[in-house]
């Protein structure tokens, strides 16, 4: 596997395009230097954005398979996530959440193939 083997201009252009997308979306509201403050209601609304974004990213990942809601309880991911969440509420430590969740997930996934 050599360093540049298989590199082509088209793929590099796509990577450049995705870089612009990252920059544009992450800095969208930083560009203008105009003085304007968010209306109060919008500021309160944004308090809910972080947890909504996390839930929207994580829960489909854990509760769905191939674009469908789990129709079978034998799935290692929701179990791993449930163990992880329980450990979080017990010890309030993200590292322990990851370790416990993986300890629940890996045997089910690798040995039972769930």
């Amino acid at each position, binding site marked *: *596997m*050599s*360093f*540049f083997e*298989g*590199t082509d201009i*088209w*793929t590099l*252009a*796509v*990577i450049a*395009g*995705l*870089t612009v*997308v*990252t*920059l544009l*979306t*992450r800095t*969208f*509201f*930083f560009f203008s*230097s105009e003085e304007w*403050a*968010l209306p109060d209601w919008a500021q*309160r*609304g944004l308090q*809910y*954005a*972080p*947890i*909504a*974004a*996390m*839930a*929207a*990213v*994580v*829960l*489909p*990942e*854990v*509760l*769905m398979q191939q674009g469908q*809601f789990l129709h079978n309880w034998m799935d*290692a991911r929701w179990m*791993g*996530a449930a163990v992880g*969440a329980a450990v*979080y509420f017990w010890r309030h*430590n*993200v*590292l322990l*959440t*990851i370790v416990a*969740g*993986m300890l629940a*997930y890996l045997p089910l*996934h*690798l040995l039972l193939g769930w």
Partner: protein
Amino acid sequence: MFFKAENYRHPAFMEAVRDVAPQAPGLAAWGLMTGVAMVNSGLSVFESIAMTLFVYAGSSQLAALPLIAAGAPAWVIVATGFCVNLRFMVFSLHLRQYLMHLPRLERMVHGYLTADISYVLFTRRFANPSEDPADQLAQAASLAGNTCMMWVSWIAASFAGIFLANIIPTSWGLGFAGTLCLVGILCSLASTRMRIFAAGVAAVTAIAAYNLPLKFNIIMAIGVAVVLSMSLERFLKMREGQGA
């Protein structure tokens, strides 16, 4: 931006590094598997490194890989990345109030480096922006320390994944550690009933709208959850007012 002395010499910088360190292993496992996935999907080592360093957005990278492999039109891939990243626009709107005292270039570097975990941990640490210059400096230094830790973990792990791609099979499921890291952060945010309500609404919406194209379900879930939570908040306040 973590390469500015004013930020990295500030005590809030190291405090933030220590604060976010527990999430680093989960992020690293996720970065490792993203590195493996890039090479396995047929990107060259050079392309994988360029993508890691410049795109720096795991979810849009992973969404783009199958499309690149399938030779989808470039605009479709870029549009997909845009939709997957739409949530960052909401984040930048929120962070604006914290960073507007900085010059444009500086706040844009901060923004570029602030991905999901950094945003969530920063807004959890500082619930409100400050008017006081000393506090503003501390907040910027804290964000710099936070994003520095996340950047180093993600980049180092992605590089490891790129070079070890032939040894680590994706079937092991190590990428699940990244999901667990997000589970932990989700739990840490679920501190009030209203927030749990918002998470529930977002989850139901994201699952129900999962089959929308371009991962549009995520931004839709954020929108619906924010609007419904605000409405419920207002409703509860009105009812309280009537009761009194």
